């Protein structure tokens, strides 16, 4: 059997971490090979070694049967290896065409010549069904299209070994389906793909074989057809993971948050981002607002938490009108908010963990006296949360949050928000980009809040999460509520129809 990539016994040591400990990976020609592991399992390190960003301490790399030393991405490129990074490497102010040729431009007497490149790109995008306008600017196109540009970049360079680093983390369900089709198309044209992910459904959907890493160690390689999702997750996490979420039926009681006729202006365009929305969230229920990204969910949450002004309507929290109150006042009324963007809003990355854990409560009596910080209390508070919520951080309370893994950053935010003993939790895509262990954990925490008779408003883009965690679902489409459904009865397909705007009904509030 011919292998296009053979990485044998790769070992890479970073200060304090053995990122890869005798890891092997063999990829056959023409297959989609999934590389599965939790955050920090060593997937990215292994691929960075293959792509020439790191040099391994030990081990050999063979490409198409020949042994090579790959010192930098140019070496990798010469061997036909291309990579789509999780965070795209595109110049926002350049066009699609300019981005694709960047670094391998045709030059005619010192002048840039784009005509041949344009022809080739149009051909490639037809051949692989990668529709994208070559003259569009990157900042104008969607994330899904940007990813296509990255794929075209690799194809334009004649790469035949394609590495996709968690390509679905930034995509909507529809875009993910589209990407899966593109990937299948690529292998049918003779390319080989390494697909880094921690989403088991996607592996089941497209991959031929899967290699599992755990904490830097090689666990095994299996044919995807021969292993169940449960077996894969056990290999990845090292223990059994519950996929079915155990929960009692909800017992909704008092209304905690009541939104009426809320309209929020949009940043772009004249159509409001949130248009005349009304709903209630009750204590003891998880209300999920389902929808495709960019349909007004973010603006709705920012309006409820007070971060942006509203046009009209009312927001009543615990019986008190909040529409004109500031963020601070809303926290005082026992609102907690797990924000959508943990780096932009959730954390001050230059602060250490203990400082981030008091981001909204630093002014409380426990943490200050006459304006002077009580350092000891702050430290104790951090240590308690680290213990209670199992936050892993290298230097404990003193860890700079920038250096923590995404999962632990999110755990820190969840710990901070839930520890404030809120009456209502706004949880916005709380599991985005996390691995199964962390997702399971956060789902359990949200359900525990509900069982403590708190209200939870969950915003989610993942259908599985919507269906499994919530007690009641409202669907938002283009800033309007288009349906209310019972998660126990609705199917994924039906929910998808609501989310794409193909189906809608009047949403009424029962008083």
């Amino acid at each position: 059997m011919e292998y296009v990539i053979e990485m044998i016994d790769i070992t890479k040591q970073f200060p304090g971490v053995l990122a890869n400990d005798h890891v092997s990976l063999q990829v056959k020609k023409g297959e989609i090979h999934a590389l599965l592991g939790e955050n920090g399992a060593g997937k990215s390190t292994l691929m960075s070694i293959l792509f020439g960003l790191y040099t391994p301490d030990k081990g050999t790399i063979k490409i198409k049967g020949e042994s090579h030393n790959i010192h930098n991405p140019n070496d990798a490129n010469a061997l036909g290896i291309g990579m789509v990074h999780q965070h795209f490497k595109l110049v926002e102010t350049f066009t699609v065409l300019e981005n694709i040729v960047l670094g391998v431009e045709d030059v005619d007497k010192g002048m840039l010549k784009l005509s041949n490149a344009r022809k080739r790109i149009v051909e490639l995008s037809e051949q692989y069904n990668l529709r994208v306008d070559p003259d569009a600017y990157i900042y104008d196109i969607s994330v899904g299209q940007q990813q296509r540009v990255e794929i075209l970049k690799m194809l334009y360079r004649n790469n035949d070994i394609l590495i996709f680093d968690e390509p679905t983390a930034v995509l909507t369900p529809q875009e993910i389906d589209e990407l899966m089709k593109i990937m299948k198309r690529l292998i049918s044209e003779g390319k080989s793909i390494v697909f880094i992910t921690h989403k088991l459904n996607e592996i089941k959907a497209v991959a031929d074989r899967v290699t599992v890493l755990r904490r830097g160690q090689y666990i095994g390689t299996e044919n995807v057809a021969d292993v169940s999702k449960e077996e894969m997750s056990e290999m990845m996490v090292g223990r059994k993971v519950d996929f079915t979420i155990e929960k009692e039926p909800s017992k909704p009681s008092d209304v905690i948050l009541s939104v009426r006729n809320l309209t929020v202006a949009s940043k772009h365009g004249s159509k409001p981002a949130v248009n005349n929305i009304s709903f209630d969230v009750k204590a003891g229920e998880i209300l999920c607002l389902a929808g495709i990204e960019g349909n007004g969910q973010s603006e709705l949450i920012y309006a409820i938490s007070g971060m942006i002004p509203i046009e009209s309507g009312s927001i009543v929290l615990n019986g008190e009108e909040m529409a004109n109150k500031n963020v601070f006042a809303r926290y005082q009324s026992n609102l907690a908010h797990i924000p959508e963007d943990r780096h932009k809003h959730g954390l001050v990355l230059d602060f250490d963990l203990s400082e981030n854990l008091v981001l909204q409560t630093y002014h409380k009596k426990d943490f200050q006296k006459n304006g002077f910080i009580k350092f000891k209390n702050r430290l104790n508070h951090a240590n308690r949360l680290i213990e209670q919520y199992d936050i892993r951080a290298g230097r404990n309370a003193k860890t700079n949050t920038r250096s923590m893994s995404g999962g632990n950053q999110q755990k820190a935010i969840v710990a901070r928000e839930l520890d404030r003993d809120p009456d209502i939790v706004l949880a916005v895509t709380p599991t985005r980009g996390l691995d199964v262990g962390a997702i399971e954990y956060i789902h359990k925490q949200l359900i525990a809040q509900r069982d403590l008779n708190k209200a939870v408003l969950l915003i989610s883009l993942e259908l599985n999460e919507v269906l499994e965690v919530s007690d009641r679902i409202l669907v938002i489409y283009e800033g309007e509520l288009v349906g209310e459904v019972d998660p126990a009865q609705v199917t994924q397909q039906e929910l998808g129809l609501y989310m794409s705007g193909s189906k809608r009904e009047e949403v009424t509030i029962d008083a």
Partner: protein
Amino acid sequence: MHKLLQSDGFKSIASSLIAILAGLIIGYIILYVTNPYDAYYGFMTVIRGGFNSIPRGIGSVLYTATPIILTGLSVGFAFKTGLFNIGASGQFIVGGFVAIYIGVHWTFLPTSILWIVALIGSFIAGSLWAAIIGLLKAFRNVNEVITSIMLNYIGVFMVNFFVVRTTYDSLRNQSITPSLATVPKWGFDTLLPNSGANGGILIAIVVAIIVYIIIDRTTFGFELKAVGFNRDAAKYAGINEKRNIVLSMMIAGALAGLAGGLVYLSGTGVHIEVLDRIPMEGFNGIPVALLANSHPLAIVFSGLFIAHLNIGGFYMQRFDFVPEVIDMMVAIIIYFSAFALAFKGVFEKIARKMKGDKA
């Protein structure tokens, strides 16, 4: 060894020292190129700085250091809160003028408190002047670098206008000396005679300690830093980020204004000259803050150090160097000092490598 190399304090101090050393070497080369015979002596004179003439030189160092410590604190404080205050010069001159005005015209106050009132005036004037920058930044998102540079010019010309109108010595084309309002000597005149050193340096040091406490120990400092590091997260956390931006600029301005007050009330015959020139004390605050990595207590030392070099440059005039070369030499050392951060990165790399070798 690598444990020592890894500690943050060591890295900061060592990188500053290396930056200074590199600056000294390049400075020496320049001296050598312009005048090989006197290069060594000239160089040693700069190094000796204030110690060329004891005690007078030492007093001069303290006197020169006072305003640049305060403008350094002004720039450093703004840095800590995510703002680049390049307008310390404008705040300095506005503060200085108000101090002179009060010193000259409010003589109905007893002399024992006139200087205090005048200093408070300079403090308030600087903060109000800088508030313009903060308000524009907070509510209109106007880049503070642009507004603060422009306010330097507006400040200088406005002060010229008011000096001519209110406190003008037309014979000399400069401001009247507020002889009744001078910062007390507090013994510095007997300890370091003929030097101009006065209680201002003590005021600057006390202010540095207060700034340190505000930034590091108080919830107010916590808020300011949160806004500085991540304005969006501060907003999310319920911190009034607009108010904090304005307050941060006002405090920075107050510090620079106080620097102006201390200079023009020093009783050494310094005047505001009616010229179209921006006072250098404000800009010198930038390297002072950079060299100290914006740490308020370290700013005291970097201010003293840069004053030391400047005085050294003054004594270098006894050798055959054109004054421009002296300024250049001092500037190069300061310039390299600003690379302290870059050297810190180098240190981190070395520390990592040493650790890697051992593992």
